């Protein structure tokens, strides 16, 4: 069944390892929707989250191929609906003085927040699932959206699973 799936990878936080992992996604022609990478609590180890739209076999094969890379400590895949996925977006919006109040209403409706309020434009920060973020951006498009920065999704599987379970405690 082709659905949104998260592939999470724990890897050495070196550019060469990251390039290898991302190069593999391209080489194996994986249907990638978003990528996010950031540090973990373990020094020297990063977490790469890849959202793909695929069947289970494709996701599992991606996991096995990623696990073969030198520098990859662990990899796992799960359907997005079996986990929590979150994305952060910063949206720079311009709203004329007369529509400022209306803009704040939209921000409040989406539990977003204004993180910069310059005279020319404001920056809205919002967090949620991919669909939620898209919906909010669409709502903001009623005003003049100048720039959007999205982080790509990060995801954790529900329950006791742990993509890093295979990683010894000493790394």
């Amino acid at each position, binding site marked *: 069944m082709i659905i949104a799936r998260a592939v999470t990878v724990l890897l050495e936080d070196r550019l060469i390892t990251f390039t290898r992992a991302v*190069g593999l996604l391209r080489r194996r022609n994986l249907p990638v929707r978003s990528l996010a990478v950031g540090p973990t609590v373990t020094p020297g180890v990063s977490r790469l989250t890849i959202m793909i739209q695929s069947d289970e076999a494709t996701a599992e094969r991606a996991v*096995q191929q990623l696990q*073969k890379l*030198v520098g990859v400590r662990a990899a796992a895949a799960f359907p997005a609906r079996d986990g929590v996925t979150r994305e952060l977006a910063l949206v720079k919006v311009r709203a004329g003085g007369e529509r400022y109040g209306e803009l704040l209403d939209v921000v409040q409706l989406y539990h977003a927040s204004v993180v910069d309020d310059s005279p020319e434009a404001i920056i809205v920060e919002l967090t949620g699932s991919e669909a939620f973020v898209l919906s909010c951006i669409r709502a903001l498009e009623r005003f003049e959206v100048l720039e959007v920065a999205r982080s790509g999704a990060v995801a954790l599987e529900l329950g006791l699973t742990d993509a890093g379970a295979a990683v010894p405690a000493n*790394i």
Partner: protein
Amino acid sequence: MAEQLTGSQVLCRALLEEGVDVLFGYPGGAIMPFYHALPEYPGLRHVLVRHEQAAAHAADGYARASGRPGVCVATSGPGATNLVTGIATAHMDNTPLVAITGQVPRAMIGRDAFQETDIIGITQPITKHSRLVEDVEELAEAVHEVFAVAREGRPGPVLLDVPKDVQNQKTEWNGGTVERGNDQRSHLPSFNRFALAEAARLISRAERPLIMAGHGVILSDAYAELRELAERTGTPVITTLLGISAFPESHPLHLGMPGMHGEVHVNRAIQQADLIVGVGLRFDDRVTGNLAAFARGAKVIHIELDASEIGKNVPVAVGLVGDARAILRELLEALAPRHCDGWRAEIESFVRPRVESFKGGLAPEGILGAIEDASRGRCTVVSDVGQHQMWVAKLFRYQRPNTHITSGGLGTMGFAVPAAMGVVMARPGEPVWAISGDGGFQMNMQEIATMVQERIPVKMAIFNNGYLGMVRQWQQFFHGRRYSATPIWSPDYVALAQAYGIPGWRVEHGAQVDDALRGALDHDGPALIEFLIEQEANVFPMIPPGASLSEPIESEAVTA
């Protein structure tokens, strides 16, 4: 106080610790410190090639023939990029190749320095692992790491990029450290008892079983186990292009090669089978033809070291991940003797008389038979790519394990001549034939000079038909006989041999074959024979690309 060494000396010592005895390489600016140190280590024999591509193929040939990593060395920039085709060849066929390249000094990296190239970036998709050495302190460990990665699990090529100033850097030698870092990935077999029992059950109950043996059987030295599996269960054995010589061809259970140029009865057996036991192969498209129509009636048991191969191309009933020999041994424990005589008789009835595709003159079949006789079967055959490759695969009767070496996955023309040099280095004293077409031979024939200078007695056979034959065959079958850019002129090969100071023969008639072969084999050094074969001979049968194994072109008549 510990001994002070340069990075280059550390590199040499680490190579010796890894058991390296021969390097194929070519010096240049960024690798000069290494070449400066090399004469201090007579245990490392250096073979100076004429082109770095040949160094990579020779190291690949050495690795395939010896089972140990083959090492090639080049300088930065063009030296390194010339290795690329050889590295890709080793990558597709899973051979343990270690490429060592010089790099510009660290302070120059990223500044487009003279002869700088990002060889790590270039080779990333075609190496199992690559590493830029950033300090001499990590050099020995880096050497041991790349060798370990090249060797372990499913083998493959690795690249070590060593900046020139690191080669000159001084350090204390503390002896070899074979630390594997903290990489915890497991390479242990992960098949489970239930899967094994299920595989045994399927094999015991199958009525029309087949074994398909690939390169993995050779890589894991599982010849005896494969033979035992076949004999105990009476199951016929198919060998893929890279699996050839994994099973003796004189054996009554040997069927032949499958796929695009497989014999009709082999492909028909696949299409009628109810069980396929795949051992160490990846169900490549040249083997399966149209996947949707491949072995529709068969359940597949896939025994394979690389978990990501299982189910990649063909859906499997049981996947057993691990070393072929270990798994076959476990499987044999669970199998009682049985036979499949009815099925074997049925396959026998599929056998068609060989359509004589050679109309006259010198037939490749006769030449290959004569090579086999003249070498008394005690030779290794290294083929190039194209029509002759298929003839060498199908018409030679391989009896001994790992005596057929070819570029299967990448299909690299120009492979045979340099790879054969590596095979000779790995198997001194054994006749090694490099069999090429006139196209592939001309891609790396400069290596005759290497053979002469380094005294490497490769016996070269050129199947000269004046065409890039396989492409011409496709043009004949699928492009309305428009022979675009396939007629190819050759030099006078006998004169060429003479120019290099080696004996050469031109064979135009069957009567000349034996004398030439005897002369080449008796000569203590490299020798060359040109066989003028029929110009438009074709390889039959042929499954058109994208067609199913049930749709072979069997003869000229069908192609008009």
